[in-house]
């Protein structure tokens, strides 16, 4: 369940960028890695408080996302989709090796000390039944819920949020309305990177931080497809489903199935229902 939340958050980042800018960002996992490393720097190296460090990391990643869009993606705007995808993959590799070179980061595996213990606590009284969850996992789930709620409120109730929806639905018309589309895209990259950072920080206690943790982004991909690429609630639900399927597969199926389960689901979805669970079909009236 909690790993599903992580997938959901990373998938959310994919979808935000894809929906608005029609770019599939293969560096989403690396953004998550960078976010986690920043948090590690603030908390473990500089010795800040956990919350302050996490907030600072998320904040910094917002600007990193912003800059990635401005520096790497704006020059290739209007080029074929393929080149843009290559740029994001290239950025992913760069980020991974750069993180390995930063003094204090390196290629080792690190842990962040969190205020959450990994001990189990029961959610319901013993008399009702046994439902045990570790504090770490609970923190992940709650944080995911809060993040989704905040994002939802932002996109439906603020002027900028609605403008972002507008730009994603019809770029040209958004331009005609005087919405600075390019700046809006950079903002979306920023938000998406911030969400990725949050995912990285939440993931840190479970899998520890290293430069290749970004590969989890590849698992978030099936989640996004399952939910219908381009649907935000779909990304969340898709992430949860993938997470649950993976855990169940690890439990009931022979070893090895756990890692391929997500991709099996991806294949099945593509064959049976290519538009995903929540895919939007758009028809245009002329």
């Amino acid at each position, binding site marked *: 369940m909690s790993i599903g939340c992580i997938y959901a958050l990373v998938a959310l980042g994919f979808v935000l960028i894809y929906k608005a800018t029609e770019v599939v960002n293969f560096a989403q996992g690396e953004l998550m890695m960078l976010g986690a490393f920043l948090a590690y720097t603030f908390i473990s190296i500089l010795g800040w408080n956990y919350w302050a460090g996490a907030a600072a990391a998320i904040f910094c990643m917002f600007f990193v996302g912003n800059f990635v869009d401005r520096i790497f993606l704006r020059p290739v705007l209007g080029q074929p989709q393929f080149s843009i995808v290559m740029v994001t993959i290239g950025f992913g590799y760069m980020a991974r090796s750069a993180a390995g070179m930063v003094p204090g980061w390196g290629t080792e595996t690190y842990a962040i000390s969190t205020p959450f213990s990994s001990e189990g606590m029961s959610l319901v009284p013993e008399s009702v039944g046994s439902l045990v969850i570790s504090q770490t996992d609970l923190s992940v789930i709650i944080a995911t819920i809060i993040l989704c709620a905040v994002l939802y409120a932002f996109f439906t109730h603020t*002027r900028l949020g*609605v*403008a972002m*929806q*507008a730009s994603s*639905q*019809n770029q*040209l*018309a*958004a*331009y*005609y*309305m*005087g*919405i*600075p*589309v*390019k700046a809006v895209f950079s903002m979306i990259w920023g938000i998406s990177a911030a969400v990725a950072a949050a995912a990285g920080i939440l993931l840190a206690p479970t899998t520890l931080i290293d430069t290749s943790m970004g590969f989890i982004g590849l698992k978030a991909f099936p989640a996004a497809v399952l939910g219908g690429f381009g649907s935000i609630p779909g990304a969340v639900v898709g992430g949860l489903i993938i997470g649950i399927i993976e855990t169940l597969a690890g439990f009931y199926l022979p070893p090895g199935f756990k890692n391929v389960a997500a991709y099996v689901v991806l294949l099945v979805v593509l064959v049976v229902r290519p538009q995903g669970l929540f895919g*939007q079909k*758009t*028809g*245009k*009236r*002329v």
Partner: protein
Amino acid sequence: MSDAILKVRNIETYYGPIMAIRGISLDVRDGQIATVLGANGAGKTTILKTISGIMDPQKGIVEFDGQEIQKRDPDWVMRQGISHVPEGREVFPFLTVQDNLMMGAYTRKDRDAIAKDVELVHSYFPILKERAEQPAGQLSGGEQQMLSISRALMARPKLMLLDEPSLGLSPRLVKEIFTIIKRLNVEQGMTMLLVEQNANIALHTADFGYVLEVGRIVMEDTTDNLLQKEDIREFYLGIQDHGVRGKRRWKKRKTWR
């Protein structure tokens, strides 16, 4: 003309190697409706796109309100006071009608005035009030066109660019929409540049007309005069004069070529 709010001088715009407009000049005067007529592919839409900054001209000047606006970003041009009603409506399909209107007012900060303008727009297009909470994608073509015009109005522009508002609408709806366009011009003093294939209705709505053929302006005059011209009557309005001999001349040429 000194009182022209929009002056286009000699612009040339290309789609890759293809020259879509070949040196066009036109004026739109304050408080007037100017129209550009032309067939498919004459370059009508390209002119509007060049003015609003979606496309950049290779040569030439676009001057709006005493300021050169060519080769700028479209959102900047829009903030100078030019609203573009794009061809094929281009509403935001998953936003509600209300939100679509609010997007039109994106560049404005004065909440009270925006609320008043929503009222105003509703008074011109009552249907939009009824549909306020529906996603715009569910509206009919005519309603979407009304929404598109209203959305442009919400920016309180000094100049509106209208790209084929009649596209895909029934004759009755076309009439309705053009009546409202004329009313907006008269009652609100809205200056407009109207691009149309439907020459008949455009000439009856506008004050001044330009005729565009393959990227060149071949005729310009007041619409009253244009309506009298033989070529316009024959080739754009489809009115045939019966000659003295009782049948049409078999070799009729447009006189401007």
